[in-house]
């Protein structure tokens, strides 16, 4: 539909200044004509669920308006705050580790590995965890951490490091560590790939100039590479924070939220309210709260750290 509209021919045979001004406004109009239907449709598709969620959150099962009852229920539930705390703890464990590890490996490989064949191999290896579906990773994690048949305990005991079974999934802090380790395993390579690609774009002349001047690798990094990587860091942070807030699949399989509710992250908590307690109103209220909070958070962050320099 929009392609047809774009077939309008460009103006020909007009005076230069008038042509310039007309072409710009024509370009703008063209842009809007193309953009609006696509964006409009997407906007509508994205907004309808939000509207539905709001509606569901202010009515009860029979459709009568109940005002903010569901919100009161959602905010009054102590498990909600447990879920928030668990998610925060998870993010704290996962984000710094992934970024630091990814950066370390990217720098290491960029500096020390020069042969393209080796780099290609490393690339393939780094890509692997990205393509494994999180459910499959959760399954592998069970095979590693579970008591009785988990291979980790087998290896530890075989190497003589421990003498009894460690309950990786039975002690709350260890369970949290287990699910965090899965996330780190799966996403550090992503950080590595992005930062490594970013390092490739750093101009060699700058590096060589710095090296001639006797800069150590740390100074080199701090003043040159970091400058180029900064926007990428922000981007990675954005995406990883977003993903951590949404994480579900592998935790679902590995611990199901247990032991107790110690690994019941936000998305698992919401899932439980909707599918175990069938409390659609409270689940919708939670959804609205989460969506609104994230929007506020997001706009605050983008205002402080603009990604796109205009």
């Amino acid at each position, binding site marked *: 539909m929009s392609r047809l509209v774009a077939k309008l021919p460009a103006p020909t045979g007009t005076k230069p200044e008038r042509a310039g001004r007309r072409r710009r406004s024509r370009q703008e109009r063209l842009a809007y004509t193309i953009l609006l239907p696509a964006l409009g449709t997407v906007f509508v598709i994205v907004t309808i669920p939000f509207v539905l*969620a709001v509606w569901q959150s202010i009515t009860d099962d029979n459709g009568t308006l109940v005002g903010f009852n569901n919100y009161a229920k959602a905010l009054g539930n102590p498990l909600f705050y447990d879920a928030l705390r668990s998610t925060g703890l998870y993010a704290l464990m996962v984000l710094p580790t992934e970024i630091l590890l990814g950066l370390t490996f990217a720098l290491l490989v960029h500096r020390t590995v020069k042969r393209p064949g080796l780099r290609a191999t490393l690339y393939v290896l780094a890509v692997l965890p990205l393509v494994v579906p999180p459910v499959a990773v959760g399954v592998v994690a069970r095979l590693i951490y579970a008591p009785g048949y988990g291979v980790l305990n087998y290896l530890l005991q075989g190497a003589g490091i421990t003498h009894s079974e460690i309950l990786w999934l039975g002690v709350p802090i260890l369970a949290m560590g287990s699910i965090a380790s899965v996330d780190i395993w799966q996403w550090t390579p992503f950080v590595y790939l992005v930062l490594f690609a970013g390092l490739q774009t750093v101009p060699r002349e700058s590096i060589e100039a710095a090296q001639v001047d006797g800069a150590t690798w740390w100074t080199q990094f701090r003043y040159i590479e970091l400058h180029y990587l900064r926007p990428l860091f922000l981007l990675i942070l954005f995406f990883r924070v977003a993903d951590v807030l949404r994480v579900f699949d592998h935790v679902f399989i590995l611990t199901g939220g247990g032991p107790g509710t110690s690994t019941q992250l936000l998305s698992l908590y919401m899932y439980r309210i909707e599918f175990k307690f069938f409390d659609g109103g409270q689940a919708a209220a939670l959804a609205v709260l989460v969506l609104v909070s994230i929007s506020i958070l997001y706009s605050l962050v983008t205002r402080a750290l603009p990604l796109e320099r205009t």
Partner: protein
Amino acid sequence: MRSRRAAIALRLILIIAGLGVAAFLYAFPLYWLVATSLKGKAELYQSITLIPQHPTLASYGSVLFERGFWVLLKNSVIVCGATVVVTLAVGLVITYPITRLVVPPQLRVGVLNWALSLRFLPPVAVVIPYFAIVRTLQIYDQPIALIGIYSLFNLPFAIWMLKGFLAEIPVELEEAALIDGANRWTSFRRVLLPLAFPGLMAAGTIVFTFAWSEFLFALILTATPNAQTFPVGVQSLVTQFEIIWNDMAAAGVIAMTIPLVLMVIGRKYMVAGLTFGVIREK
């Protein structure tokens, strides 16, 4: 001087040891997945062995044919392929105006920011309203429902990546075509698309991979092998009363293969695409 060399050597040893440990921690889960998939059922009941005693491909056959998961595999390929097409098309439609045409910068930033914010949408928060919509539109348990939602969720990635690639292509090339008498659509098709091809490949590969792994919407919006995708099948093998770790591992290995092949083929484009166009060549 000797101590300096010793210090360097020590650092080298530490780095290598560290890398070695990291490599092991990283590779062992993958090895374990493959090893478990090659084990026979009886072996799962014995003590753990690091190497399968009688390696067999039986679980792959069991997963694909006895459990009929090849249908799920087919569904995944169709859904993800269609998602790539839709996402790239819509992505181009959105990215083209804001990179090729002169528009107010607020519009460009606004669109890009809005696109990025979509990534923050927790699926579990919207899965129920989407379920209600899908039911009303009578597309429950139909692949089209998944294609629509996956395209929506992957649009931000596609927009950011395409933005990067399209912005690299000099506007002059298109303007030259326009001056030569071509209309915008022809210049788009003949000049821009071929140059943007690497970006399209990179974006397409990433979108395919993310769509491939999606689980929650597939779980809620499908009910039968009519539309169920492979991750739903993988998860369904985590069962209460059976020990079928080998089948489960085999399903995991199968799930890995196709996107991995794609990633390897599209490697050239990936490296460029992964900077998401945020870093410019200077």
